[in-house]
């Protein structure tokens, strides 16, 4: 209602104690295409949906390797994301040069957050319009952080940002209890399923998503398209076979976004165990 009066610059508070420019920046994150992160004790997986302007153009790069032990997925203004990734890379490499040792993720994330905070307290700047999911490994294990345009950061077991991320979050909320002990393969599968949740019925193909992994003994790298397609096929086969039984599922299994109880419990497509639980069929609703 009175929003418009106090939202002209970032250094003006509203009477309710809000900085609207910062909140608008967080809206920009919600408009970007989805990015998802999950972690176990030893691995962190990042996945994102590739959005291209048109069929003719290539899609925007949303996952960046920052160092062998850190990677980041972004959502929002990708140009801002690119600039922040460059900052992160340079911090990592400078630390490595001085100390011959990898920069602990927790410290990088604080530096990033401090950088974002500066933009919320200068009249000649604007907040960064990008949310970052930072995945990394350090002495104390695997970590996943979310950095906000507001300068806040939080650590997560699993999180999703960007458009239709709520669907992915709902899926993750149901399953996150198991993530800590998950194997690398199960973690990637969960990431892909969460990605599919955000697609609202569109078929999940490796051409529209990107997956990256970092883990103990495994430097951060983006999985190549063939590997991703194979992983998708592995669990899609199972779900396709179960499509007829999907409609007999009890309504409580369905969630607001898209898709149903995941077949992930059954392993990579091999087991045909509790058949009735299968079936994240494309939306019939």
């Amino acid at each position: 209602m009175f929003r418009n009066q106090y939202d002209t610059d970032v250094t003006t508070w509203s009477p309710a104690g809000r900085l609207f420019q910062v909140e608008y920046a967080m809206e920009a994150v919600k408009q970007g295409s989805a990015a998802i992160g999950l972690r176990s004790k030893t691995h962190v997986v990042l996945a994102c949906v590739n959005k291209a302007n048109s069929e003719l153009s290539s899609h925007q790069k949303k996952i960046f390797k920052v160092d062998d032990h850190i990677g980041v997925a972004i959502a929002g203004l990708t140009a801002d994301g690119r600039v922040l990734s460059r900052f992160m890379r340079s911090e990592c490499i400078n630390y490595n040069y001085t100390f011959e040792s990898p920069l602990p993720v927790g410290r990088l994330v604080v530096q990033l957050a401090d950088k974002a905070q500066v933009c919320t307290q200068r009249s000649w700047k604007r907040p960064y319009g990008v949310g970052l999911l930072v995945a990394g490994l350090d002495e104390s294990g695997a970590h996943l952080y979310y950095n906000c345009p507001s300068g806040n950061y939080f650590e997560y077991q699993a999180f999703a940002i960007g458009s239709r991320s709520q669907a992915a979050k709902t899926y993750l909320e149901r399953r996150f209890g198991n993530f800590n002990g998950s194997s690398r393969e199960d973690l990637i599968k969960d990431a892909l399923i969460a990605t599919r949740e955000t697609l609202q019925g569109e078929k999940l193909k490796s051409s529209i998503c990107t997956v990256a992994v970092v883990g103990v003994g495994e430097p951060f790298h983006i999985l190549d398209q063939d590997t991703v397609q194979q992983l998708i096929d592995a669990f899609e086969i199972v779900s396709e076979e179960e499509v007829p039984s999907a409609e007999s599922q009890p309504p409580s299994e369905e969630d607001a976004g898209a898709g149903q109880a995941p077949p992930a419990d059954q392993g990579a497509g091999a087991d045909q165990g509790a058949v009735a639980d299968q079936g994240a069929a494309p939306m019939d609703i």
Partner: protein
Amino acid sequence: MATVAESERTLYPYVTGSSVVALKYKDGILMAADMGGSYGSTLRYKSIERLKPVGKHTLLGASGEISDFQEILRYLDELILYDNMWDDGNSLGPKEVHSYLTRVMYNRRNKFNPLWNSLVLGGVKNGQKYLGMVNMIGINFEDNHVATGLGNHLARPILRDEWNENLTFEEGVKLLEKCMRVLLYRDRSAVNKIQISKITEEDCTVFPPFSLKTYWDFSAFKNPTAGAPGSW
């Protein structure tokens, strides 16, 4: 050439410490140095502590200019302070401190204003033992046993023969004492007041000073030049 005023850069050392010797043993690192600070050829100061703990995981020993060593301790103090202020479960280990010091020493050398020291850095972190050395021109390396100054010539050969991976604390101390005794006999800037310190995963201890028993009645000491060419 020099980026500071000519009158302000280090040209030569004034008060110097002599050798430091260190070795890895079963549980961590053992380091020894005497407590002397020489002013040229005068053995002027006899209670200088040249072995200092740094943070939780590192032990630093220095030879060379004592005032530069004190400056280095100030740098490291600040480094460790900022590291602790993160308060996040991460901490700088001996390898990181060694790299940091290498950068500092090398950068000063490039500006023709060196910190006139040879430093020995040892420590244990997460079960990994680390022992390294860095000197005033930025030369740095890691090894199972290191020494500075004359120790390189007198102590290292002994260590090469007698060091092994599984030394107990007592064996390590005995070996260090052997090295320090040779240095005491042969290095004119050594004083007979030795400090040994150890660092393990759990803690770091700098032991109180002690002196080595010496024997000066060897017949070879009595007439050292007898038979040497050109002597009488």
